[in-house]
């Protein structure tokens, strides 16, 4: 049993299929840049994981590939471009700003603007309802305020 388990285990890393093992780069900064880049790249095989997290052979290969490129002095932008050239925009978890994604990135702003307009409109109408009250003396106003604050919170 132990042999079987060990054999299975060995199969993962030094795979019988010509799969290279993953070896961390000695320079911690390279590993850090790899982590940051890989966490924004989508694994094509297990499509719900990042390349940083996935154990798929392709993800492993791509991580090694990225290490080599970082060590060779390529910039983050160049490495991302390398991935996009081969796999398309699908591989980026941060969708690039293109004509087709303008609506995606602008959308939240537009929604916020609509929300702000609606808020302003409702407020204007509400103020008209609340306005026109005779000014009250401060003490009285404070008392009323305190009462209003607790109104409805306590049930008889």
């Amino acid at each position, binding site marked *: 049993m132990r042999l079987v388990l060990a054999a299975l285990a060995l199969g993962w890393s030094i795979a*019988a*299929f*010509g*799969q*290279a093992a993953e070896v961390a780069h000695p320079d911690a900064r390279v590993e850090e840049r790899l982590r940051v880049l890989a966490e924004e790249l989508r694994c*094509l*095989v297990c*499509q719900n994981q990042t390349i940083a997290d996935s154990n798929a*052979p*392709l993800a492993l*290969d*791509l991580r090694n*590939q990225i290490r080599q490129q970082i060590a060779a002095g390529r910039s983050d932008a160049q490495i991302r471009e390398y991935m*996009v*050239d*081969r*796999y*398309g925009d*699908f591989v980026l978890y941060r969708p690039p700003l293109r004509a087709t994604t303008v609506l995606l990135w602008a959308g939240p702003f537009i929604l916020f603007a609509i929300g702000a307009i609606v808020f302003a409109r409702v407020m204007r109408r509400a103020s008209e309802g609340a306005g026109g009250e005779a000014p009250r003396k401060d003490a009285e106003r404070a008392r009323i305020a305190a009462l209003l604050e607790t109104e409805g919170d306590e049930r008889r």
Partner: protein
Amino acid sequence: MRSLKLVIPLAAFLAIAAFLAIGLTRDPREVPSPFIDKPAPSFRIAQLGNAAGAFSPEDMRGKVWLLNVWASWCVSCRAEHPLLVEMAKRKVVPIVGLNYKDKREDGLAWLGKLGDPYALSAYDVDGRVGIDYGVYGVPETFVIDKQGVIRYKQIGPITPEALEQTILPLIRKLEA
């Protein structure tokens, strides 16, 4: 008169529902190739059968050909293999295999057992060529024209429908 504003939620929902309906006809897992209508990436690697010989896509200039990514460990490859063998018998177009992340002996044994439809197979031992072609699963097949431009990528095994409806007509068009 009813305020038109009240219809906005309904309109928004109907738009979303329409997209969801269209979405039912799509496969979200399929990643289209960015190489369509672009030149096939260049490489030069050893052949599977003849370790001393090399292969490069430039060798196929002037011909319409298929590049088929396969491996002995790939179960789905067996499904499409008979189709490829048939195509090779009928001499439709040259088929070049890309043996992906395999062991040489295993790959050759597999071909020996199931038939070899390939003009030759290139031996991509570490998957670098696969990465350069955006391969993310096996099998995949590229249809490449006489100028070395990729015109179509079949993701997954070649089905008879894909063959009849897409690949063969495309090949005929490219040959012309």
